[in-house]
């Protein structure tokens, strides 16, 4: 039957074209793009996790050091600002948005650092089991943020490189002409250091 032969031929052509195209890196760009987006959601999740810890932390500190109102309010305000900014993965090509996000989160990091610093002068608070647990959770979250950010930066670098290097650049200029490089998540040196907690 002719139709079967032609069907097989069609399948063969599709397979052959598929293999050739994939060998040229057609899939590379979408794959790397998705990876970078996934890494970004990790970053956001970890920041969210930190934000979720804060109400509990503030409540605990308040119980022992209510007079440190300024520091506590600063943390609450910084948290409110930071949680307002949410970046959709499709907006990752906008460096301004990313910078706004980073600035808000860094402000929160600073406020948290001050809170932990003043809590040093309250021995009862420092020996509170709940506070100690929260502190180690906060430290852990800051570390996870650092890891997630590093992974995101690596993923973006791979994606941006693919957009500009051969052979993937051929696809970047034709089929994926709409794909823009993603913004790297740069921050001022030192702000990524978690607040130091001494036991």
């Amino acid at each position, binding site marked *: *039957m002719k139709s079967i032969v032609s069907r097989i031929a069609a399948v063969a052509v599709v397979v052959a074209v598929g293999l050739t195209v994939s060998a040229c890196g057609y899939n*590379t760009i979408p794959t790397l793009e998705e990876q970078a987006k996934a890494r970004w959601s990790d970053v956001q999740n970890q920041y969210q996790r930190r934000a979720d810890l804060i109400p509990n932390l503030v409540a605990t500190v308040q119980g022992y050091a209510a007079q440190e109102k300024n520091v506590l309010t600063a943390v609450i305000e910084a948290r409110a600002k930071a949680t307002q900014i949410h970046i959709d993965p499709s907006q990752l090509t906008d460096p301004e948005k990313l910078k706004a996000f980073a600035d808000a989160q860094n402000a929160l990091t600073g406020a948290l650092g001050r809170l932990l610093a003043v809590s040093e002068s309250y021995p009862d608070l420092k020996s509170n089991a709940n506070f100690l647990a929260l502190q180690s959770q906060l430290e*852990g979250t800051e*570390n996870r943020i650092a890891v997630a950010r590093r992974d995101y930066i690596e993923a973006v670098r*791979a994606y941006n490189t693919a957009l500009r290097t051969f052979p993937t650049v051929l696809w970047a200029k034709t089929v994926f002409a709409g794909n823009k490089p993603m913004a790297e998540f740069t921050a001022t040196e030192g702000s990524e250091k978690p607040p130091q907690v001494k036991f």
Partner: protein
Amino acid sequence: MTLGLAAGLILGLAAAAFAFDFPALSGRVVDQAGVMTQASRNAVEAKSKDLEDKSGIQLVVATVKSLQGSDVETYANQLFRFWKLGEAKKNNGVLLLVAPVEHKVRIEVGYGLEGTLTDALSAVIIQSAILPRFKANDFSGGIERGVDGIISVLRGDAAEWQPKPKSPSNDSLGVTIFVILFILIIFVIIVFGIIGSRRSGRNAGRGGRTIFAPSGGYSSSDWGSSGSSSSGSSDSGFSGGGGSSGGGGASGSW
């Protein structure tokens, strides 16, 4: 083909990411700094092997001569990923890293164990079991107590502690069967196609064709498959199972 390309890319990435000069994963205890006694090395190896046999969790102790200018968190995370501790799908690895020169210690926990060996529990183990002995220069004792603490926390999680059949070998068997079936099906289609075309004059109706059977949604998304399925059946060839960590755990200094 794409796989090769992607693998090359990932390899390049990995090479770029690991800027450190890591020690080789020679066993469950890598005492590069040479601070442990032989007896305690053996004891920890035995405990770790027992843990992996029962639960699949890979627990590795490393002492390093230097953190190479990095902070302990970054170094521990990169080393964990370099060694790929834990099973690829479960990410159930734990690394106890000791840097005697820098006076730093860290418990780095794989993604899959973050819920059991939490940051807070890791911190408690470091503060109460490890640091007091490190302060007295008793590294062997501190590490042994730390390992005991980690194992007891992990043992508390009943689901993790159930004896399980080795899954990685089953997985690779499944993939092999799937691939063979796939090739067979394509072969059959082609053969039938040729037969069908030869019979084109005759009355070989549409009934004679094989239809692509939906091959039961087996998803082989095993991204760590390139590595090893040797999940520590014997200690001679101990290697990581492909797990990763996202920075869970806790650190301490003395």
